[in-house]
């Protein structure tokens, strides 16, 4: 019915990182995601946009199987990470999530020190052999999270004591510390003020150098600012997917146009 229109990609040098094929998601009886197929590229920021309740967050959470924690949720279809089906029986979601990190809507630092927050992932995955290793990983992650300069003198103070924007960058640093290949961000700026939002957006742009970033956002301006590819979801369908510039200037589907011009949403 509403097959996704996979547009010609202009960034052909990037490989396909994640390939979703005919994905269906059900919450009990409710059909939350209908037949979504999409290719997400490496070293690219892909934005999922659409009105609330359109399924964009649900779809995002399918990519690292966070939906497994919800008992009534059922996923059908294939999602391939580097060609391997992540819903294969042999896949341990724990392993998957180490490679597909996630940043949440509300900053959720653990009630631990800043250092321990960042070191948590490397510790559970056994990435560091020595204390010096760990120190190095933590510092590099905090630098990538663009928060090192602000916290380097108080690494052992609780992460919950930081401001909202700092907390979110800490959470990004925490996600980066496990060396993921894909970074999923679920409305990472919705709880932040404009200045913090600008800092996080700048950070997202830098992260593109190393990762495939998928960001769910409510703000079309944000999608336009940070992403190279944009997917528009509506009522559980992937309506349109293509280069961000094309989606915002010359949408193919009338629903996309209505949304972008503010008639639905």
């Amino acid at each position, binding site marked *: 019915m509403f097959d996704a229109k996979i547009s010609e990609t202009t960034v052909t040098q990037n490989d396909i990182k994640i390939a979703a094929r005919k994905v269906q998601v059900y919450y009990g009886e409710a059909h939350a995601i209908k037949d979504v197929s999409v290719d997400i590229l490496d070293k690219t920021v892909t934005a999922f946009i659409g009105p609330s309740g359109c399924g964009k967050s649900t779809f995002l959470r399918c990519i690292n199987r966070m939906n497994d924690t919800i008992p009534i949720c059922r996923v059908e279809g294939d999602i391939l990470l580097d060609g391997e089906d992540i819903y294969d029986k042999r896949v341990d979601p724990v392993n998957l999530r180490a490679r597909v990190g996630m940043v949440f809507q509300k900053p959720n630092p*653990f009630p631990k020190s800043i250092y321990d927050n960042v070191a948590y992932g490397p510790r559970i995955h056994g990435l560091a052999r020595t204390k010096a290793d760990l120190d190095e990983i933590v510092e590099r992650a905090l630098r990538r999270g663009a928060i090192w300069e602000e916290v380097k003198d108080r690494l052992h103070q609780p992460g919950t004591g930081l401001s909202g924007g700092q907390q979110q960058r800490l959470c990004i640093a925490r996600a980066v510390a496990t060396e993921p290949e894909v970074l999923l961000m679920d409305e990472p700026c919705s709880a932040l003020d404009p200045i913090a939002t600008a800092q996080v957006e700048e950070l997202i742009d830098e992260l593109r150098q190393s990762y495939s970033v998928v960001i769910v956002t409510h703000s079309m301006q944000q999608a336009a600012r940070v992403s190279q590819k944009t997917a528009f979801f509506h009522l559980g369908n992937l309506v349109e997917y293509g280069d961000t510039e094309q989606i915002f200037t010359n949408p193919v589907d009338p629903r996309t146009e209505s949304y972008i011009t503010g008639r639905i949403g």
Partner: protein
Amino acid sequence: MPLSWIVLGLLAFAMAGFFLGRARATRAVQGDARKLHSLPFYYGAHVFLMTFVSAFGLLVFWMAAQPSVIGWWIGAGLEGEPGAITLQLSEIKRGAAQLLETGTSPYDAASVVGAGAVRYAGMVQAGHLFMVVAVVLVALGGFFVSLRQVSGEFRARNSVEASVRGLLIGASLIAILTTVGIFLALIFNTIEFFRIYPASQFLFGTVWQPSSGGGAMQPLGLLPLLWGTLFISAIALAVAVPIGLFAAIYLAEYATPRFRNTVKPLLEVLAGIPSIVYGLFALLTVGPMLLKVFGSGGLGWMQGASSVMTAGLVMGIMLIPFVSSLSDDIINAVPQALRDGSYGLGATRSETIRQVVLPAALPGIVGAIILAASRAIGETMLVVFGAGAAGRLSANPFEAMTTVTAKIVSQLTGDSDFTQPEVLVAYALGTTLFLVTLGLNLLAQKIVAKYREQYT
């Protein structure tokens, strides 16, 4: 006039007041209730309350005060040592009671006691008469004043609601009154005890061996009892905390809703069983079982079915649901966002629980454990049966020891002479128990309140 008649009479009079008040209000506006400030009911209720409550209050107060006043009056006229006066006074009271009931005094009217009894009886009768007159006067006064107040503009509802509000406040003051009552009951008797028994000997004594009529010489040391109490509580917590906590973790984090809805109420059945049942279970089931293994037939560490281990194990079983349901609440209060953050980083469930959920819930869980400890320390029936009767300072958990609560029971039951130290010591024990549990409760409440603040 018997008391019940007075009360019934008052009620009838006040009911009459209700109807008169209501009628007067309706009449004041020529039957047009819309012109009244309040519904007619409230005018009646106003008269009822003004009539009944004031007179009834006076009645209760008079009844409470009269015996003390008369006793003080008569006592002031007696001569001799304070102790002798008290004795004489109680004889006078007994004589007066008999005089009032049968009309004949057991004492010679010429003797001090006999004359006192006659005077006493006379005063009781006179006091009763005065009381009836005073109550009737107050009731009439309330009746007429309130009835005169009734008019179309009178704000009867506000007046009635103010009274009801007063009653509500009075009810909530009962809680304070109870605490004050506990405090007074304990403190006065404890002071009395320390007057006839050296405080240091009680607080630091290491031997507990009360003997009837032993006076201040008998050893009434707190330490063996405190040791038994703490030893049993420690074993109980060692059983209840791991089991309760792990059960709570499983129920909160792993269990399917169906499993949870079946198992949780079942575990809570353990909490609903009265402690005397656990006492019997300790004495007749667990004790003999332990005795088979650790008694003279086995390892030889245990002499009888009652022991610290017996009581501690069973108390542990009793506290499992207490620990688990408190911990369950607290674990559920940890925000889901923290769990998601951990899962999102690729942590397993157990890693998330151990490294994120439990550290976050730790203050609350500590609070729960403190509350459980306070429960264990205050538990009575279980230790009366399970722990033993002799106070002992020993490190062997298979020996019978006794606790503060068990000794409060044993010293205060039976024929107690409330002037002897071996009876009064129960109040000093009660004070110790009250202060310790109060301290633990306040501490736990503070910790838990702070914890809840953190996540709301």
